[in-house]
């Protein structure tokens, strides 16, 4: 962060007092006296919020105001969903040619297998939309918005196991300790919302087998960035935001009385000690109070029209489902939350893929369609970037016993498929090509760093310039190696 920015950031932070509706002393006025700084700080020139944008940002006009990231934790099979390989049934149960595998490393789950037999997808593929993109029958609903999606078939990573791989794509490094994507966005762009956190995370339940790969809070934590940029979990059970609800016997009036008294006492303290941080605390308590009403309002979907609810499918009214989370994602987006991420678990299908994958797809398929359509209907898709994908892909060869009807697939980091939509991403296109086995990339590789660079670019951020000095380095989400936005999918 350069020194000027640091200073401006501070100034901006103070603007926020004026929106708290509190008389917090002379300090609150300061921001008003620096219109030139305020202009330099935010391109919009709008009043600056409780999560202010970092001065100098956005680096250029953003296409996306917000990100909705649908993360399929475990590594969905690209071969059974989006990377159609019509030639495979003919070579069912033959060995994967060495010329394709090229001795690349395997996980220890299949490195001991004596054979690597080809397992074609048992699912039917059809072309959809004007663009004629191939979709598996498992995601027929998503296929209906084919012309809004940019399918990227050539995403790749180096990590081969879940924990490092998911940490890598979400934080830019395989080793724990770095800020997550959403934290970077919160840090850089702040939020347009005064009474909700800038970065919200949901972890809906899933339908296939009970044993699912873990998540880690580090996937939405702030790493070395200030903790306020950490994602806040929006929960389906208990308090929707941790500790949001007042204890029994404490109503709104009782809470207000307490906050008034505490605020008065704190102001006396400020008068005595002169530490401006005291006013910050007063303001934070006020924001907590506002959150106590804004969050219930957010989660109350009773006023959504039937037409809207129907878009997301029958589970939309059941809290804790993916469909419900997707609807909440739209509601969060409407309220100005910067980054919304849904982590859906159990996409790790080493065996019995045909038993589990359809169940997982049923959880998310219609909701993905619903979300895109809903955003589009409201004119929000243009300014919302929607990203779908997991941490790696799956192998064309079978893990365990192979039959036409049943098979499993091991982890495959060398190519997998993600899609993006909205925010000026070209719809109805496929980027990149994989070989006939969906094993290696033959055209336009996209590293997960490039994915992150693309996401930042849509948000108006030059990934090379969103930095935070830590351990002597200008740390970046995209790390030290080269990364480039995927220009091919950008309109």
């Amino acid at each position, binding site marked *: 962060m350069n020194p000027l920015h640091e200073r401006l950031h501070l100034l901006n932070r103070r603007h926020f007092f004026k929106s708290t509706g509190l008389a917090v002393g002379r300090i609150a006025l300061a921001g008003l006296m620096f219109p030139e700084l305020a202009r330099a700080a935010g391109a919009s020139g709008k009043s600056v919020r409780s999560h202010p944008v970092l001065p100098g940002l956005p680096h250029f006009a953003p296409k996306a105001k917000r990100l909705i990231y649908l993360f399929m934790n475990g590594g969905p099979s690209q071969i059974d969903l989006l990377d159609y390989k019509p030639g495979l049934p003919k070579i069912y149960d033959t060995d994967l040619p060495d010329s394709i595998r090229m001795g690349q490393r395997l996980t220890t789950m299949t490195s001991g297998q004596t054979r690597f037999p080809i397992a074609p997808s048992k699912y039917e593929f059809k072309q959809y939309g004007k663009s004629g993109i191939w979709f598996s029958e498992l995601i027929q609903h998503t296929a209906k918005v084919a012309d809004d999606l940019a399918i990227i078939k050539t995403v790749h990573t180096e990590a081969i196991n879940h924990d490092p791989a998911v940490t890598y794509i979400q934080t830019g490094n395989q080793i724990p300790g770095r800020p997550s994507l959403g934290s970077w966005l919160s840090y850089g762009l702040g939020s347009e919302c005064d009474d909700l956190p800038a970065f919200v995370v949901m972890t809906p339940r899933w339908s296939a087998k009970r044993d699912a790969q873990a998540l880690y809070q580090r996937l939405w934590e702030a790493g070395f960035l200030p903790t306020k940029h950490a994602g806040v979990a929006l929960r389906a059970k208990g308090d929707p935001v941790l500790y949001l609800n007042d204890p029994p016997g404490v109503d709104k009036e009782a809470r207000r009385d307490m906050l008034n008294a505490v605020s008065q006492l704190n102001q006396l303290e400020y008068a005595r000690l002169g530490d401006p941080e005291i006013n910050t605390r007063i303001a934070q308590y006020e*924001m907590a109070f506002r959150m106590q009403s804004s969050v219930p309002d957010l989660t109350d979907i009773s006023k959504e029209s039937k037409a809207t609810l129907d878009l997301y499918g029958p589970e939309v009214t059941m809290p804790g489902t993916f469909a419900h989370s997707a609807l909440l994602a739209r509601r969060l987006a409407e309220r100005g939350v910067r980054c919304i991420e849904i982590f859906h678990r159990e996409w790790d299908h080493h065996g019995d893929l045909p038993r589990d994958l359809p169940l997982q797809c049923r959880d998310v398929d219609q909701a993905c369609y619903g979300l895109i359509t809903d955003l589009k209907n409201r004119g929000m898709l243009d300014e919302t970037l929607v990203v779908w994908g997991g941490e790696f892909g799956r192998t064309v060869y079978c893990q365990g016993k192979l039959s036409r009807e049943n098979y499993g697939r091991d982890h495959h980091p060398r190519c997998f498929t993600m899609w993006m939509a909205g925010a000026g991403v070209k719809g109805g296109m496929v980027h990149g090509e994989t070989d006939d086995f969906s094993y290696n990339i033959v055209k336009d590789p996209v590293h997960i760093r490039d994915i992150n660079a693309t996401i930042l670019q849509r948000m108006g951020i030059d990934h090379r310039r969103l930095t935070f000095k830590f351990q002597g380095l200008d740390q970046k989400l995209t790390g030290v190696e080269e990364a480039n936005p995927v220009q091919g999918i950008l309109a």
Partner: protein
Amino acid sequence: MATRRERVPRRRAHRWLRSAGAVVLFAGLSWSLRGADAKVDFNRDVRPIFSDNCYTCHGPDGAKRKAGLRFDLKEGALAKLKSDNFAIVPGDPSKSALIQRITTKDEDDRMPPAKTGKHLTEAQVATLKRWIAEGAEWKPHWAFIPPEHQSPPVVKEKRWARNPIDGFILARLQKDRLKPSPEADKVTLIRRVTFDLTGLPPTPAEVDAFLADHKPDAYDRMVDRLLASPRYGEHEARYWLDAARYGDTHGLHLDNERSMWPYRDWVVAAFNRNERFDQFTIEQLAGDLLPDATREQKIASGFNRCNVSTSEGGAIDEEFYVRYAVDRTETMATVWMGLTVGCAVCHDHKYDPISQKEFYRLYAFFNNFTEKAMDGNALLPPPTLRLTAGEQDKKLSDFSARIAELDRRIIEEVAKFSYTEPAQTNAAVWTNRAEYVWVEDDFPPGAIAQINGGTAELQLVEGAAAFSGKRALRRTDKGLAQDFFTGASQPLIVGMGDALFAHVFLAPDDPPKAIMLQFHTGDWLHRANWGDPDAIAYGEKNTTTKLLLGDLPKPGQWTRLEVDVEKLGLKPGAKIDGLAFTQFGGTVSWDKAGIVTATEQEDRSGVSQLAWEKREKAKENSTLSQELKDALKAAPEKRTPQQDKALRDYFVANIYAPARSTFEPLQSELKDLKKERQKFEDSIPATLVSEEMAKPRGSFVLKRGQYDQPADRVEPGVPAVLPLLKARSDATNRLDLARWLVSLDHPLTARVTMNRFWQQFFGMGLVKTAADFGSQGEWPSHPELLDWLATEFMQSGWDVKHMLRLIVTSATYRQSSRVAEPSLRVDPQNCLLARGPRFRLDAEMIRDQALYTSGLLIEKMGGHAVKPYQPPGIWEAVGYTTSNTAKFEQEHGEALWRRSLYTFWKRTAPPPYLTTFDAPSREKFCVRRERTDTPLQALVTMNDPCYVEAARHLGARMMEHDAKEARRLDYGFRLLTARHPNSREQRILQTLLDKYEAKYRQNPDAAKGLIAVGESPVNDKLNASELAAWTMVASSLLNLDETLNKN
């Protein structure tokens, strides 16, 4: 949400900006560090510019260096360039190519290149010009020069200074014409220092005693009392455990529990006994390598085992050996040396003189642990240490003796047997997979037939109703019914890839809702279901306990059902001795069931060693020892005589039927004994420790840090820029490294450590970047003071309490923290310390304070971590479903009210009430916590049941203190802030109390609801409505800014 470390007063900044304009803004940032010095100082002013802007291409990394020019070394910077120019001509900026290149208007020529996104400010250019004009004096990076003992500066205001620290602070303040603040009042002081040394506030009685103590050394005696308190160790340990990345789970993937807490208790004890810091260092990094290492020293070596580890399926051992060693190297380098060596994992360090090779030489010290790469998700992945006490050792050795005796007797008995292989029988040799029919016309021999749920008896129908043979099993029922048997004397033996089958006929006019086959292998947990998945309630869907295989077969015809053994979770070698034919409703017939297998079903193992060998070889997970497995694998004619004997002996002792009556009692006794010993052993606490391999693993430079791309082999060693490590002739190991770190000529350890201690008290280190003392780190605000502290630390014999005492008894520390105009203007961040420290308490202190002031705190030291209140779903939301920390089970009683230090730390989902206040996840070292203020924090202290319960107890305490409300309010206020409230504050609280009393009087149910929060019993002597009102007042006090801050 605002970050606290960014503290700039608005109004003053405004005035300042308006008068000075934007350029001063830049200078303003280093203002506080620069003071009124005239001359440019290379290390302070110039190196940071080079480092930040030039080192990437002109720095230590030889591979990326451009034009052969480097600015990290004097020789490099002053050398003649290829162009015959000189980058720097001392004394002459106009001849220096450097100045030309950074000032040129030509975009292509200008440095730093535009694509780096860096550019030099006018002020920076001016600094470089001035530095060259002044002669371009070069100094090595300050942090690599050993600290020299500094004499405290002589200052005029002698009356203010209390110890040498103050001289340094005062001298620096005077450069900016600042005056120190007066001493804080005694009440503020006792609260400040009590928190700083014990993590808890003082009691009103302690405050009174201190106020009444008018002797000149009253403060010093108080400090001594606090340093002697066992709470001191608990508090101080907390900072260290952040650095040591201590947690109660493995941290990766499953994130199961692991037992490290004895190490945590060791840290607490080490601080309490004021262990010398050099010893503290050596024992943690290499306690296991000390000659005749004590148990405590071995526990201390657990420091190296605190890193996160994995056992994820598919993970590659070598990759994780590398990760663990890198983590340990980075942790050591940051914690003791403030060096960011991690940059050199992939390439030479860009800023500091640490080459990639040097990194791997440090790494070589940490690459030789006897641990396995995969931790097995175990509580105690070896090497570990059982911490026996009292008679436990003797009891363990008794067990061992008894076990040895039994082993001996078994060997004796084996020798008495002679065994000869019987002649081959004519049993079919099973080479190909074939159908083996188990149930046909009757249940197999030995089967005990039973009925579950159905009413009628077992019904066998004959003739055409059967699928094959003579008879079939038929049942009509309205609900769940099972015809089943167990105890077949010839169980089915499962082989790899086998399938189980049965034939079924559903009556077309009366089909069931669902049918199920259930197999018995000691338990009944293998079920295959067809039809309605909910009809038969047994098992969990989509697991091996209830495999869902789709719709019912078509009624009116015989259908063959077949299911893979793997899907049922039946491992090769498993024995099925029972089968349940199950239906829900309808009329169902069953016939001909068995297995499609390549495994010989008639088990002759008991009489034939050959038969046993064959069967054993087919097992996927043989439990035989490696030696026996190897023997089995060898072709019989190639086995050594020892292998032959080992196999025979094993067979006779464990398998051979005629010998069972001899060996069974012995073996069952042995088994029981071992079980008993295990149970006893498990009851003894244990901890992970370090242990060095007899022969080092061998370390290599790894190309781009890739585990599978080793380059040159390296021996353990230290970077050349640091003092020489005197290698021993035989082998240099961690012990040498640890001793080297605390050698008196080491420039970093004492400075880095004292800087962290300083940071603890003042909120910011003398070097702000506590984790980076390299060239990208911040220049120290008081370099001489830092050196004085470092040398004093070493000369005192690394006496931690001595150093902390010096800090807290200094006049600097004892200043009032009132923010006065001049110091705020010149030094908003309080780097120069013209005022006392004031900042928000850490997470643990806030919670502990609530527990302590309410009287709930249980001051029990040490032991297994505890699980107090936590909102539901925190672990469940992220946990791997089979992890043993997937489900949070809150404890009860004392566990709820222990100090936060003892809270169970699950690293992938750490305690939310602590992380909300910036506690780290402990996945990685943390030498400096962020300090933020967020609304989520307000929600914790207002609504977390822990705080609501504490408020109730605090309220009750206030009520019981006095009959008069004013005195009660005063008491509560004092418990938290140590001072009496003034009359305005009293009034505000009284008004609040009156409101709540009225409210809860009218609404006793609400009152009851509020005071029922928490598991501690409600004081029923108190009126519920009144208690509720006082609870809310207490909660308000717990949420005061003054309560949450150290002042």
